[in-house]
């Protein structure tokens, strides 16, 4: 009796292994790309690919540490504001004559410090990260405006800004793709192939059990926030150079796009579940969908609706699937169990 029940449970799982959302989203993304290349005019050109990469670069970069943070069950809504603040800081430093070679690492450090502030409040005081990072979202953006006001600093050296949008030699491969791939590989390795990744999943899956396995959960989260800040600092530099414009409102509102992409990639907002390839697919799907819809002259209104719907469906669909499967399994079991007493 119980053996039989066990086997059915396994069969159900067998199914679900192939229907996990991150696998699904990767498939959907690939299918969509093939569809778009063949049937959306101009989508398949090499130049459009370059544009697409440049467009999704900041989202992708911010999504990397965001994925790790959400897998631990926390969230960081302040990333876009951190980008804005480092961009402002970059402008101020450049105006006062600091060389770019000094500014760039400094910006990453500034980002890391801002991340550490988040990390402190979340881990040392145990405050809910949603509330903390809504607060620092406003705080960092405010400080960005305090630093640079409404002005823009735009006279960065052409060589640097054209590198950010340039391609490798004559190929259509954007320069930024190289660091993007390196970073994505690094984060994927950390999350999926290194001991610390196991600790990240454990912390998000069951904080108490993680602590019982000797994982320093608070310390881990703190350093993830620092990483998130540092990457946001890097994106701040990239953004500033790419648009050749250091401004306090750079990347305004980007945090929601990043969170949306991560969730779309199959990461559970409650932590413990998700894969980096899934997130990469989520980012690519979101960006290429918008790109293709724009090329097909679909209005920006529709883009907004599509983004929101995708997000809801990405969670709703597996839930509904799961429930359907549960009902089916119960039906099956009913038929196997001897009929209940009268």
């Amino acid at each position, binding site marked *: 009796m119980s053996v039989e029940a066990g086997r059915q449970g396994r069969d159900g799982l067998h199914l679900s292994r192939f229907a996990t959302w991150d696998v699904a989203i990767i498939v959907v993304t690939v299918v969509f790309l093939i569809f778009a290349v063949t049937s959306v005019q101009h989508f398949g050109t090499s130049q459009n690919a370059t544009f697409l990469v440049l467009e999704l670069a900041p989202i992708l970069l911010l999504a990397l540490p965001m994925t790790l943070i959400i897998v631990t069950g926390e*969230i960081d809504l302040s990333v876009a504001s951190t980008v804005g603040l480092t961009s402002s800081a970059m402008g101020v430093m450049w105006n006062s004559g600091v060389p770019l070679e000094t500014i760039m690492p400094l910006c990453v450090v500034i980002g890391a410090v801002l991340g550490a502030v988040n990390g402190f*409040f979340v881990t040392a*005081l*145990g*405050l*809910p990260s*949603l*509330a*903390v990072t*809504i*607060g*620092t*979202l*406003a*705080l*960092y*953006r*405010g*400080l960005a*405006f*305090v630093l640079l*006001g*409404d002005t823009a600093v735009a006279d960065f050296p052409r060589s640097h800004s054209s590198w950010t949008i340039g391609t490798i030699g004559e190929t259509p491969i954007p320069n930024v793709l190289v660091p993007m791939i390196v970073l994505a590989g690094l984060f994927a390795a950390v999350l999926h192939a290194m001991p610390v990744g196991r600790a990240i999943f454990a912390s998000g899956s069951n904080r108490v059990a993680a602590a019982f396995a000797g994982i320093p959960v608070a310390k881990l989260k703190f350093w993830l926030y620092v990483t998130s800040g540092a990457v946001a600092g890097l994106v701040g530099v990239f953004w500033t150079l790419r648009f050749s414009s250091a401004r*306090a409102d750079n990347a305004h*509102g980007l945090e*929601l796009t990043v*969170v*949306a992409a991560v*969730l779309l990639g199959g990461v559970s*907002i*409650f932590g413990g579940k998700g894969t980096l390839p899934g997130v990469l697919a989520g980012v690519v799907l979101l960006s290429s969908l918008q790109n293709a819809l724009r090329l097909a002259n679909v*209005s*920006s*209104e*529709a*883009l*907004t*609706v*599509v*983004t*929101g*719907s*995708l*997000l*809801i469906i990405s*969670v*709703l669909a597996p*839930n*509904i699937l799961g429930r359907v499967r549960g009902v089916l399994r119960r039906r099956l079991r009913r038929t196997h169990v001897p009929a209940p007493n009268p």
Partner: protein
Amino acid sequence: MTVLARERDSEGGATSSTGSTLLDTVLRFRALGLLVVLAALVAVTAAVNPRFLSGSSIRDILLAASITLLLATGMTVVVLTRGIDLSVGSVLGLSAFCTAWLLSENPGVSIPVAMLVGLGIGAVCGLFNGSVVHFGRVPPLVATLGTLYVFRGVVYFVAGGSRINASDMPAGFLDFGSARVLGVPYLILISLVVLALVAVFLSRYRAGRDMYALGSSPEAAELAGIPAGRRKLTAYVLCGALAGLGGVLYAARYGTVDASAGYAMELDIVAAVVVGGVAIFGGSGSVLGAALGAFLLTVISNALPVLNIDQFWQRAIVGALIVGAIAVDRLVALRVAESLRKKGSHVG
């Protein structure tokens, strides 16, 4: 009965009543803290610029606060049940535009009808949110982040590039936006009435208490037989309806409505609620606190220009305030918990 039991009793007897007064004091202290900050802010601003306390200035602040207040009230109910509604800004925009459009097309529509329409639009949006959260088991943050985009997209569709100007709307409606009884603007009266009703609902009705219970411990709520689905739907519908009503007031007050009405408002509202002492994971807090938070944030954004403070500082100050408020709240709570733990333990 056993020796063991008697020993315990001799020490355990003192536990019971100590906590109550302590915690009460702390809770009162929180609201008090906000009031003190508020009073200090008003005093300083008024000292620098006495006009800040003039009748028209106070009226302006009340008008500005009325919409935030309304939305914060709805948000509080949702947050109490351990949810969140990030779509309120979009709902407000949708309702504001639709109401304004309705009035510009049919100048004969009376104000109560317009308010009902706005309320209805909001309620439908809220019902959608609630259904996705409850029936679809989608985490509230994800669900309402999605509808934030979807509802805003709908506003864009409906509004396109058009803007409804004051001159398109009936004068009666616009007058209502600035009219007052005995010097008090209608808008703030509406908000205060709603606030009072919701406050009474939450504190004096069974269904209201269920909201706290749901947020306080979902598992215990299930064992206690609380109808979680109905309550959650109520919370989201209420939040949506109030955002819808806020949209009507927005249209009446500003007279100009386009597709961007209420853009990015959600974070301000969440901030007001959090600053007002409502626990972001549900179960504790009051609409009065949230109202105080909303009011404080409004006063700040009105006082800083009057003080001639660089407006860019404003956002930073608001952010620092949010983090500061929850940090202080947590530190106080930790202290209380620690002292209760030591007092309450039977062993040692």
